[in-house]
């Protein structure tokens, strides 16, 4: 019995369809394949086929516990899936607003395979049901609001007319509020949204003045001229008042008020009058024409062929769309396209799961962006914690499933720093071994994500399989995998199109706020391991490259993998860090660790053996701020490669 069944009775043809569906399982992963791999799951080998769009998925696979904001986004994803659909949860009981999971299993490969077997039988038997109820959740209710195409700031909840210009308000979906109610496929109201977010500024040419006799004209149809206010008979807009002797109400005719004016028709220059009106031949508004023709700064962008004596017939006051769009901000390639606001995330294929990137796109160029993590992990920053050191270490380690060992090590080191303890050298070496193994797995996971993002399928599969192998490999296995890593590196150096895809993209200048591989690719050879005596004893030297672009970051991570293998070999052992017993200690201390993404710092305050305050500084928090300036005016594909190359972990981003 599945809750997401499709309406119908299970008979005849539908039975055949159910069997086919049971054999063809396509899954959409929450929060993402990177998390699934970090937990050691090989979903493709288990028989699930990952898809990029929830519309093409029949299984929603939830891996591990997910925070509330992500759950809401997952509910939206679930609603977008086509029926019959199944909710498959691993390692968690689904909490509202999602419905109860149809199949639940543990977080291991064996459990996954078991669960998939259950899935198949669930599909074969429950794909169609005569009585189905729709899935409903509060965030799915779309609020329709009404807005004026000319004045995007005018928003009402019922239909009506715009108070500013009198046009009929057009319906559109309510815009994103905090951003976490939107998932991948935001369906937008085409025209109204377009008009609302576009910057066609038809309503803002109110350079009206005051005492002179007024006449009323329509901004869209200047041939409509009346002496009293009213509505335009053609489009319904309120007529704009304008002085009889001054500038017409459209952008590109601004003139001084002093010089004598006469009125002429742009189409028929022979028609000249001394008062305003309409051309008797074509009905156009007569344009004022005077000796001194001053053009304002707005026209600097266009070559000045707008003065009336040289107005060509085809160039009517309001008809030239070049003029209409002249005030639109131009993107880097000079083409003014529609401005679209599109969310990329939080489960976007190719981006880290949990990262919500809202891009304002001008065509396919990024005009603006807003990046945030929907995973709010701020609970550990509270000043008034009270937990014993062991559970604190566990909490910190489980916080970021992409780098648990690094944070565990960080917590242990901080505790030891508070206690003033020294750990024996071989334990320290074994810990380094574990840290480096995680670094390798993390970088391979990044490579797999990069491959998915750039459509580099071979890399995605190879890096994913290597990551799964390295994750829990012991020393011998790691050394046995060394040739595979070397082959991968060599292959990547020879891949056509890879260099053109990443070279020169997302260039970062050396800057103190950069950390980790991002910094090292910009030429700063900062590495927390340089100051660690254990690492130094093992012969550690930081890698660094010049360039600071995405290609350099790729190579830095590849180099780091090779160096990590050498470090592990020198360390000779791998052992997960275990917290020391601190008893009833009090005090403060701090520690740093070079996580796979950069330096992380933890400051701890202990009172009577209980952790009372903790302050965590993570690299992804800093790198998140790099995104907006870096992807401005980039083409969409380049922008996504840039965001990917920063290797953010939304789990460690502090709000």
């Amino acid at each position: 019995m599945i809750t997401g069944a499709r309406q119908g009775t299970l008979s005849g043809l539908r039975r055949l369809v159910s069997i086919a569906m049971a054999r063809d399982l396509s899954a959409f992963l929450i929060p993402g394949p990177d998390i699934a791999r970090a937990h050691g799951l090989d979903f493709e080998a288990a028989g699930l086929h990952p898809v990029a769009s929830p519309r093409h998925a029949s299984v929603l696979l939830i891996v591990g516990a997910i925070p509330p904001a992500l759950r809401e986004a997952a509910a939206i994803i679930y609603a977008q899936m086509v029926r019959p659909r199944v909710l498959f949860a691993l390692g968690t009981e689904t909490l509202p607003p999602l419905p109860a999971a149809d199949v639940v299993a543990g977080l291991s490969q064996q459990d996954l395979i078991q669960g998939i077997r259950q899935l198949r039988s669930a599909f074969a038997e429950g794909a169609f049901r005569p009585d189905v109820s729709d899935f409903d959740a509060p965030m799915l209710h779309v609020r329709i609001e009404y807005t004026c195409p000319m004045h995007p700031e005018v928003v009402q909840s019922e239909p009506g007319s715009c108070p500013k210009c009198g046009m009929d308000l057009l319906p559109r979906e309510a815009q994103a509020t905090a951003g976490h109610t939107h998932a991948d496929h935001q369906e937008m109201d085409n025209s109204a949204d377009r008009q609302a977010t576009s910057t066609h500024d038809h309503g803002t040419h109110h350079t009206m003045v005051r005492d002179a006799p007024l006449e009323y004209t329509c901004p869209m149809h200047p041939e409509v001229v009346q002496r009293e206010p009213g509505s335009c008979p053609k489009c319904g807009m309120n007529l704009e008042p304008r002085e009889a002797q001054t500038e017409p109400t459209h952008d590109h005719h601004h003139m001084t008020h002093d010089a004598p004016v006469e009125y002429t028709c742009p189409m028929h220059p022979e028609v000249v009058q001394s008062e305003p009106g309409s051309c008797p031949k074509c009905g156009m508004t007569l344009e004022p024409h005077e000796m001194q023709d001053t053009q304002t700064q707005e026209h600097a962008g266009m070559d000045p062929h707008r003065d009336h004596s040289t107005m060509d017939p085809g160039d009517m006051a309001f008809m030239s769309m070049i003029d209409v769009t002249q005030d639109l901000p131009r993107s880097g390639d000079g083409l003014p396209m529609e401005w679209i606001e599109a969310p990329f995330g939080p489960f976007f294929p190719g981006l880290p799961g949990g990262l919500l990137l809202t891009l304002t796109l001008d065509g396919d160029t990024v005009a603006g962006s807003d990046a945030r993590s929907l995973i709010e992990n701020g609970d550990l920053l509270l000043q008034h914690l009270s937990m014993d050191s062991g559970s604190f270490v566990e909490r910190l380690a489980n916080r970021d499933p992409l780098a648990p060992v690094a944070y565990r090590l960080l917590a242990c080191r901080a505790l030891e720093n508070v206690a003033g303890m020294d750990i024996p050298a071989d334990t320290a070496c074994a810990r380094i071994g574990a840290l480096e193994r995680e670094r390798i797995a993390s970088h391979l996971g990044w490579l797999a994500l990069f491959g998915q993002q750039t459509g580099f399928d071979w890399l995605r599969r190879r890096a994913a399989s290597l990551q799964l192998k390295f994750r829990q490999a012991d020393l011998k296995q790691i050394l046995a995998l060394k040739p595979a890593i070397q082959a991968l590196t060599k292959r990547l150096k020879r891949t056509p199109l890879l260099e053109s895809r990443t070279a020169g993209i997302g260039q970062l200048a050396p800057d103190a706020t950069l950390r980790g591989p991002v910094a090292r690719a910009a030429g700063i050879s900062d590495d927390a391991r340089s100051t660690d005596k254990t690492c130094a004893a093992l012969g550690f030297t930081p890698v660094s490259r010049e360039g600071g672009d995405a290609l350099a970051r790729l190579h830095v991570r590849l180099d780091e993998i090779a160096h990590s293998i050498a470090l592990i070999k020198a360390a000779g052992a791998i052992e997960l860090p275990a917290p020391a017993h601190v008893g009833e200690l009090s005090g403060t201390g701090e520690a740093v660790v070079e996580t796979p993404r950069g330096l992380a710092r933890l400051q701890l305050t202990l009172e009577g053996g209980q952790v009372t305050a903790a302050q965590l500084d993570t690299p992804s928090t800093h790198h998140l701020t790099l995104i907006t300036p870096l992807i401005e005016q980039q083409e969409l594909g380049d922008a996504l490669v840039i965001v990917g190359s920063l290797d953010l972990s939304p789990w460690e981003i502090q709000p």
Partner: protein
Amino acid sequence: MSAQTFFIGFFGLAAVWFGIVVFRTFSMVRSALALLFSQTALGAMFLSMQAEFLGVLQIMMMATEMSIMAIFMVMFMMDPGGLGEMDMTHQKRLSLSAGIVSFVAAVAVAVFVDWGPVAHTAPDAAQQTVDLGLELLGRSMLIFETAGVTILTAMIAATAVAIQPATWRSKHEH
């Protein structure tokens, strides 16, 4: 013979109908693609008239051109979706008179010009292609070569004009 007439008439009417849709619809993209299908109908008409090369060429070229035009319409027009249902026609009297004059002129040309003797059968399509090729490289070479070079020049000039030099643009940026 009658089947041919039927198809010519059918595609001709389709071309006219799509042409009317171009102006009746509020959506810019529908307008552009309606024009595309109007041209395709014209190409089909040529095919029915057994001018095979011309018909295929018409179908091929117009699809590309109209699609690119559709994108430009999306770029520069205010309401590409057409949901605002704004009246986008201007200069109605002028265009109406221009349309009527052109129609009368076209009909006059069609009726009064001496097109030569009626051909009762069209040559075989393969033969037509050979003849066309010989014509292009023979009598009409000058026309087509100059037309081709002119179009190429116009393309290059348009591209050069459209690319704003980076320095000029940054100087004039607000």
